[in-house]
């Protein structure tokens, strides 16, 4: 009985993230639009876009290979699994132990790997640009991410997200400079990974500075839909990651009753909303930077993360 | 052994050293050869003396060889070679006379020091003779390395070998002395003939000269 219930909770999370992701994007876009005094499309516009893409035919370049056609599903699957393993409204889900934070990062890594390959498949210059820049960004973002994981593991003594979240929720954490640094670093990494301003601009084409869009330039129809959905999921994933690690309030263990789970869900939605608004504000406030400033940006994240780790030794005198 | 015999042996050996110094001093070939002839004569005397005091009669042969072969035949031969090669005018020291003499003195002292470390209960005559022989050998080598001309190198070598003979005869009852002196005379004859045949002034050109210019092709 309990097992079935937990499986149900796990399933609920899997599909809720799938459903929530476009909504989150729609919300962010809406907020951004309002911030610049535009009406903006409705919040559910992303669903409409996806549906329309699904209906459209796929236009494939002549020399697109099988890899090009498989990749969208792989990207989607990897991202979805990763997103499903991050605690959103409840910790200790049935399968949460199948992967810890490092695995989740690596899953996103595989998604990126195939995306970069797909970008190079057709053999246009844009694909190459996108791919080469993407891997460059990733090569800096991933170490930063790992160092963040490292300092979290130092504090919580685990890389298992449920444990980390539970620990961060517990009172003995207190306020720590190093944790603040890790938070900033994590935010920077999240921005880079999700191709948001100032690293990349999700809403542009025909710009020599574009990264993510350049890679998926050749995609259309359902393939594009898959990739878009994957990127939505990714944003959701990072937000839930931040919220479950740094704002772990209201998280319940999966064993708890439906009522407390409902509370957890509400709390989760609240956090998402807050983060979405912050993101929107930030994106409207700053300008996109040159591609070759990005390394400095991420280098700063890397340094912050390392600094956080070392500070931790001092503060803990481990 | 009584003092007189000892003194005579000592005198002869010492005068050999002196004559070696005279060789160092010469810078003309003819003069050098003449001095060498003198050297050989004195050697013959000293060998004979040794033969007398050790009454080892075979040593007289050695003395005779020294006298006939080294003091007469070789010098004459060398004279002719020099005339053939037409090098009798050469000033042929590689190092100046002065430094050479200084080096010679240094060498003699060195050999003295070395031999005085020998425990005194060894036969004193042998000891003295050894000291002189060693210095004669070293001086002979010095002549060889400070002279440009093959002929004078030969002379140096022969004086070196005189030192050997002196030592050998000084060693009481040493076997094979005669054989050795004969062997050496033959050796020297070979050298002289070699000089004569190959018209050797100083040296041939070396063979591997081409390798002097390095070849970058095989550099790593």
């Amino acid at each position, binding site marked *: 009985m309990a097992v079935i219930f937990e499986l149900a909770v796990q399933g609920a999370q899997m599909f809720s993230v799938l459903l929530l992701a476009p909504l989150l994007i729609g919300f962010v876009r809406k907020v951004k639009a309002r911030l610049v005094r535009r009406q903006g499309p409705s919040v559910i516009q992303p669903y409409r876009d996806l549906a329309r893409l699904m209906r459209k035919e796929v236009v494939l370049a*002549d020399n697109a290979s099988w890899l090009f056609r498989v990749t969208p599903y792989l990207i989607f699957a990897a991202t979805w699994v990763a997103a499903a393993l991050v605690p959103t409204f409840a910790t200790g889900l049935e399968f949460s132990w199948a992967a*810890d934070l490092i695995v989740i990062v690596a899953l996103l890594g595989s998604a990126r790997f195939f995306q970069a390959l797909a970008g190079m498949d057709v053999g246009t210059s844009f694909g190459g640009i996108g*791919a080469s820049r993407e*891997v460059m960004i990733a090569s800096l*973002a991933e170490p930063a991410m790992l*160092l963040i994981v490292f300092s979290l593991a130092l504090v919580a003594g685990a890389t298992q997200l449920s444990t980390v979240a539970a620990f961060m929720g517990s009172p003995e954490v207190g306020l720590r400079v190093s944790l603040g640094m890790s938070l900033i670093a994590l935010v920077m990494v999240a921005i880079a990974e999700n191709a948001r301003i100032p690293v990349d601009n999700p809403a542009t084409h025909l710009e020599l500075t574009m990264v993510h869009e350049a890679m998926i330039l050749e995609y259309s129809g359902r393939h594009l839909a898959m990739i878009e959905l994957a990127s939505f999921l990714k944003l959701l994933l990072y937000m839930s990651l931040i919220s479950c690690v740094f704002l772990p309030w209201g998280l319940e263990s999966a064993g708890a009753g439906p009522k407390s789970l409902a509370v957890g869900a509400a709390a989760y939605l609240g956090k998402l909303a807050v983060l979405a608004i912050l993101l929107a504000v930030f994106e409207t406030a700053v300008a996109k930077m040159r591609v070759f400033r990005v390394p400095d940006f991420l280098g700063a994240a*890397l340094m912050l993360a390392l600094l956080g780790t070392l500070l931790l030794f001092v503060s803990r005198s481990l | 052994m009584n003092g007189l015999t000892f003194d005579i042996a000592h005198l002869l050996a010492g005068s050999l050293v002196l004559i070696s110094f005279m060789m160092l001093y010469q810078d003309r070939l003819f003069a050098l050869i003449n001095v060498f002839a003198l050297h050989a004569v004195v050697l013959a005397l000293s060998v004979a003396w040794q033969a007398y005091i050790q009454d080892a009669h075979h040593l007289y042969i050695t003395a005779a060889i020294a006298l006939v072969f080294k003091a007469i035949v070789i010098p004459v031969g060398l004279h002719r070679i020099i005339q053939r090669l037409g090098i009798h005018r050469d000033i042929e020291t590689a190092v100046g006379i002065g430094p050479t003499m200084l080096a010679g003195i240094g060498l003699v002292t060195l050999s003295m020091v070395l031999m005085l470390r020998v425990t005194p209960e060894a036969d004193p005559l042998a000891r003295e003779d050894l000291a002189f022989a060693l210095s004669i050998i070293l001086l002979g080598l010095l002549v060889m390395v400070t002279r440009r001309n093959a002929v004078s190198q030969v002379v140096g070598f022969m004086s070196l070998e005189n030192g050997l003979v002196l030592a050998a005869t000084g060693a009481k009852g040493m076997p094979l002395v005669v054989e050795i002196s004969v062997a050496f005379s033959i050796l020297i004859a070979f050298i002289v003939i070699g000089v004569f045949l190959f018209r050797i002034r100083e*040296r041939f050109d070396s063979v591997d000269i081409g390798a002097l210019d390095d070849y970058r092709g095989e550099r790593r």
Partner: protein
Amino acid sequence: MSTVALLLCGPAALLATAILAAAISRLAAATRLVYGAALFISAALLATVAGHLAGNPGEVSAVTLPLGLPWTGARFRLDGLSAFFLVVVNLGGSITSLYGLGYGRHEATPRRVLPFYPAFLAGMNLVVLANDAFSFLLCWEFMSLASWALVMAHHRDEANRRAGYIYLVMASFGTLALLLAFGLLAGPAGTYAFDAMRTAHPGPFAAGAVLVLMLLGAGSKAGLVPLHAWLPLAHPAAPSHVSALMSGIMTKVAIYGFIRVVFDLLGEPAWWSGVAVILIGGVTAVLGILHALMEKDLKRLLAYSTIENIGVIFASLGLALAFKANAMPSAAALAFTAALFHVLNHSFFKSLLFFGAGAVLTATGERDMEKLGGLIHRLPVTSFVFLVGCVSISALPPFNGFASEWLVFQAILRSPELPQWGLKVIVPAVGGMLALSAALAAACFVKAFGITFLGRARSAAVERAHEVDRWSLAAMAVLAAFCLLAGILPGFVIDGLSPVALSLVGDRMPVQIAEPWLSIVPIAESRSSYNGLLVFAFITISASLAAFFIHRFASHAVRRGIAWGCGFVDAVPAAQYTAVSFAQPIRRVFGGFAFRARETVDIPAPGALEPARLKVDMHDLAWEIFYQPITGAIDFATERLNHLQFLTIRRYLTLVFLYLVILLLVLALWP
């Protein structure tokens, strides 16, 4: 007949095969015969070891033959460590021989390959079994010699000759270093048997010296920076299946030597030894992969990435040393197991990738990626398995590369418990370096696969290419399967490694097979866990779910058209992104300090017709800092000394004379 004696028959048979091969190498059937024999023998050896492990893994069997050093005899011994490396060697050996059955037929001069190939295999087997210093070094150098002969197989190419030369010089440098190390371990009495060395513990200074010498000796063979210079020259120079052996297996044998001496013979390590090894490992990993990223020769790229993986392994071994020195056996076991696991994994995917490179070479005759591209259409199977290899080596789940690197990171996460501040601070930094190298590896293999197999064909050679023979494909498929299996069922491997860890660091990782759902839990489930099987299952399920959903409810329509590319149409395939241009952003970021890279753009005056040029000059710092000064010094010395060949007789006499006088002076001044 003891197990080890049984195992020794294998190398003997291989050597016999080598001699036979030398005799019959003119025959047409020779290729098939030799590789078949090698395959059979390696498989037999593998089976024997497997049987031994299945039966009684802990059991040690030794034998002494009346060969080698007279009073020591040639001693051979089979224990957990050597058994594991025997598995690595013979698994690689048998699969390589399988590949060779097909690939060998394209060999232009089989007479220069066939005799040495079995000898090389035999050498590696014997090194792993040797149990005294003399036999060890003899087999070690024999291995180098055989591989040198294989590198010289295509000797008409000047570059190969140079590679072979540098390789053998570096190899004998390493051997001499090992020789000195063993000299210290053996002591003045000259007890060269490993058993004796094990019991006699050297003093701290001697132990330090031995460690340094081992880093020089084994490190030069494994390719640690800065001793790596020969590796990217020699490995690609050999025929591809030999490159696979050298990169995938021989470097592992070098690591075996390091482990055998430092963990087994040397006794208790000092904590700073851990620091040294960890740092060198981290630097090696990063520099190796950066070099790989800058390469455009496929096989050299692979060779450089070998250097990176060696770095990862050494860093992990260094961690194990540090933990061992601080009496933290469980953590040491974790790091040590991670290292061995990565050894196994690297032997899988590096062999796979070199096989792929070999297939490309046979299909197109090209190693230069700038002349390849679009091969995915021509070589469907090869490209698929190569892709598997790329994913595995890039440490992406659910493949095996990720499993072992994950374990390494878990080991790094235990470093805060170390008492020494130096380690506390260094290990996280090195962890960052390893993460960096992993990410760069992903970048590197995106480039390798993307430029070689994707995009449009860059040369006519590609147009003519067609899929390679079945043997090669079979070999590559087997390796790809291993990569996946080791990735989704890591628990079995880890448990298989536990006896080794137990015998060398005094503890083992918790039993993994017992875990629910076959997930791996290094310390505790609440702390960290990973389940490759589930991740793999989830990805496949959700991917197929999505596919099913789409094909059920969405449109199926597909229209082929010319590439969109924002309306720009690249006229010629040459206009595609090249390997060099792909690496440019990363070169921009790291090139400055890693290679002193300088980019100069000269743009012609407006209206001028000649193209603008981007010129990049990079320097291999290891080469410039370490090797060129040495060769320069040797040149200088030879230059000076060479004059002594051309003196006159008088001058030579002067030498003799002076020497005599000096000696006499010494005597005169003698007390």
